[in-house]
């Protein structure tokens, strides 16, 4: 016996909200990418919790794919940030106005 499933949901929801706040409020591309990572982690927690609730392995196998997608996303995202940094000399999204 661990805890009611609702507490896992609340934990993951709060974590997801924190990731969203980090993504929206902080003005740095690196913090935006970190916010996405936090949100993916919250989704993984909820998937493992529901896998335990229904005693099925499906949830855990989806988490494996979430990890792979997080790895792909972060590698391409950081390469894009480095590329943009070379072009504009900053990681502030407000400086990315080359099309103006």
């Amino acid at each position, binding site marked *: 016996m661990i805890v*009611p*499933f609702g507490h896992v949901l609340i934990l993951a929801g709060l974590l997801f909200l924190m990731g969203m706040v980090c993504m929206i409020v902080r003005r*740095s591309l690196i913090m935006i990418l970190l916010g996405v*990572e*936090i949100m993916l982690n919250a989704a993984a927690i909820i998937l493992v919790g529901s896998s335990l609730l229904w005693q099925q392995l499906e949830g855990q196998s989806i988490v494996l794919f979430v*990890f792979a997608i997080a790895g792909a996303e972060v590698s391409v995202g*950081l390469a894009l940030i480095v590329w943009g*940094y070379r*072009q504009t000399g900053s990681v502030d999204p407000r400086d990315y106005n080359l099309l103006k």
Partner: protein
Amino acid sequence: MTTYSIIFYLLALLILGSTAMAITRRNLIHVVIYLIFSFFGSAMLFYLFGAPFLAVLEVIIYAGAIMVLFLFIVIMMKLKPDKERLFPLNQWLPAAFFGVVYIAIGMGLVIAEPGSRITLKTAWADPGLFGQYIFEKHWLSIEIVSLLLLVALIGALLLGRRSKKVPTASAPEGEK
């Protein structure tokens, strides 16, 4: 209250606390270090939920690979410590209001739902059985995801390659 539930609440406190510290720090290196703590907490949570293989993967991929990648990028870029301020009050007050309403409705939904009151039982997904299950039921997805990782690798290589002449680089230099 069993030992497991005490461990769960401690871990929840650890994860939420370190994430809250992380998203409010100015220094990006501190952010990354706090997030490593948060991901270690999540790994222990996975272990508590009976997913030892995923706990190991969380430590290796998230706390190890991804965060070290962020750390390298933060260290190698010479970032100015810019004074980022919060948005003006009349901008973020409606957003905070909607966020609080969202939290309240979400919590009410979770509490009202009868399915969320089911207590979780401890279980253990053996890593060998888990791997067998993955490669029996989801072998095609594994192949697709490995192709995705290959594409991401090639894309990161292409983006990171320093081109000889960047046509747009002169425009922002002239403005400054």
